[in-house]
């Protein structure tokens, strides 16, 4: 109970900062609609089972960070966690901890992508892959830390034993995270061709992309 309240309090603090950053609670209607749509798509995309490695569901939180930024992304992941708790994917008592982990993913997704793309001048695919892989690797470690600190209810294992078990699970999650990184890379490349403005690039980037493909240029 104590740790449920602790994680909930930390998540509340993060969400409060996000609300402040977005205009002290007065979010423009456009951002409100975009956040809601992102939640809906994130939730719908989560339901798709990608038929590789026996079937994988993605959570796409780093991608949300890339698309809407850390502040709006934090509100999106909180709402997704409420939906998820409602239908049994994630518990009500885990909303605080899950929001904390997902906020790390959104935050790192946004900043790592921006760094790779803007400052390191890396291509879209590798920037998307790097951002998602980094975000999901760090968040898997954060999840290990959270469970190791708060322990599993009913378990008599020590923090060290719990951490050892959770580390094994984290390795599995990191492997899945690398796969999600590849998917994120492809999605970012796709968005770069279709709507570069969504990933923080000027709309002219779409034109440049078209000009670089001789067959597409011929179509024009």
């Amino acid at each position, binding site marked *: *109970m104590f740790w449920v309240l602790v994680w909930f309090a930390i998540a509340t603090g993060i*969400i409060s900062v996000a*609300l402040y950053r977005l205009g002290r*609670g*007065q*979010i423009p*209607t*456009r951002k*409100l*609609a*975009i*956040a*809601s*749509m*992102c*939640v*809906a*798509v994130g*939730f*719908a*995309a*989560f*339901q*798709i*089972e*990608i*038929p*590789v*490695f026996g079937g994988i569901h993605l959570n796409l939180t780093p*991608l949300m960070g890339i698309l809407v930024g850390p502040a709006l992304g934090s*509100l*999106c992941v909180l*709402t997704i966690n*409420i*939906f998820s708790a*409602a*239908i*049994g*994917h*994630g*518990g*009500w*008592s885990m909303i605080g901890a899950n929001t904390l982990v997902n906020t790390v993913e959104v935050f790192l997704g946004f900043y790592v992508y921006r760094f790779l793309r803007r400052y390191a001048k890396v291509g879209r695919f590798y920037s998307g892959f790097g951002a998602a892989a980094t975000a999901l690797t760090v968040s898997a470690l954060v999840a290990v830390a959270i469970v190791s600190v708060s322990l*599993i*209810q*009913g378990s*008599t*294992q020590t923090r060290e*034993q719990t951490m050892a*078990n959770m580390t*094994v*699970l984290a390795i599995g999650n990191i492997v899945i995270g690398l796969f999600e990184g590849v*998917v994120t890379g*492809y*999605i970012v490349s*796709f*968005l770069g061709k*279709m*709507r570069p403005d*969504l990933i923080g690039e000027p709309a002219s980037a779409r034109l440049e992309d078209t000009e670089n493909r001789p067959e597409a240029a011929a179509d024009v």
Partner: protein
Amino acid sequence: MSSKSYSKHIPDFRLVMHYAESGTSLVHRMNPWTKAVLLVFVILFVIIIQDPYLLAILLVATVAFYAAARLPLTLLLGWYSLPVFFVLMLAVLFVFSEPGRQLASFELLGTRIALTENGVLLVGTLLMRALAAVTFSLTFFMTTRYTNIAVIASKCLPKPLDNIFLLSYRFTFETSDEVADVLDAMRSRSGGLVKGVSRQTKMFAGIIGLAFVHAFERAERIAKAMEARGFTGTFPMTEKMPRMRYADYALLALVAVALAIVAYSRYFNHPIGL
């Protein structure tokens, strides 16, 4: 499950809403606030109770509540697969590493691994906790009309989270249908036969990317429409919530007393159990 749904393990929101809007059972007619507070109580029970028999009683009580709402039990069993998967994924290592009496052991990569009584008990209690919360949560959403959920969300969530929650709840139906349509189109063109991790990944990435592009375009249109209609940051609530009656207060008081007893026994070291 509706034909639009594309995962048998995840509740279909359209179906959830159908039961909520069309049901006439006693649970459907219960005051929405009473059900919302009961949901909070169930979550607190799940956190506080440690005794496996009491947890079993809680699970049976939540399933009975679900059945009283005349909701399909077969559907619930299918939807259990997701929380069961998550609990097993989390607890699989603890089954073998929890100290206690050994039930069975085997050799794996030169290391002897033992299944312990406490490990099995831990998985059992975690499963009961998860399923009790999921069952009551689903019952709440499958028996409470959207207009009532909207009022509860607007009272309980801070602004503008309530607006994001309500808008995305509405958008979920549209988006899920759109993604399902794209998946159907892909399968009808033999897209399901595509082999190779790279090609499949690229194909699904395109579907998700397209969903995001459409979502942003729709969001921009909706934002303009909302502003044109004078949206000021608050959705008007056209329907009033029914007032709670004495029976509602009595039920909540009864459950609160039970919760207080369980909490006292847990935190003041007076164990109760069967």
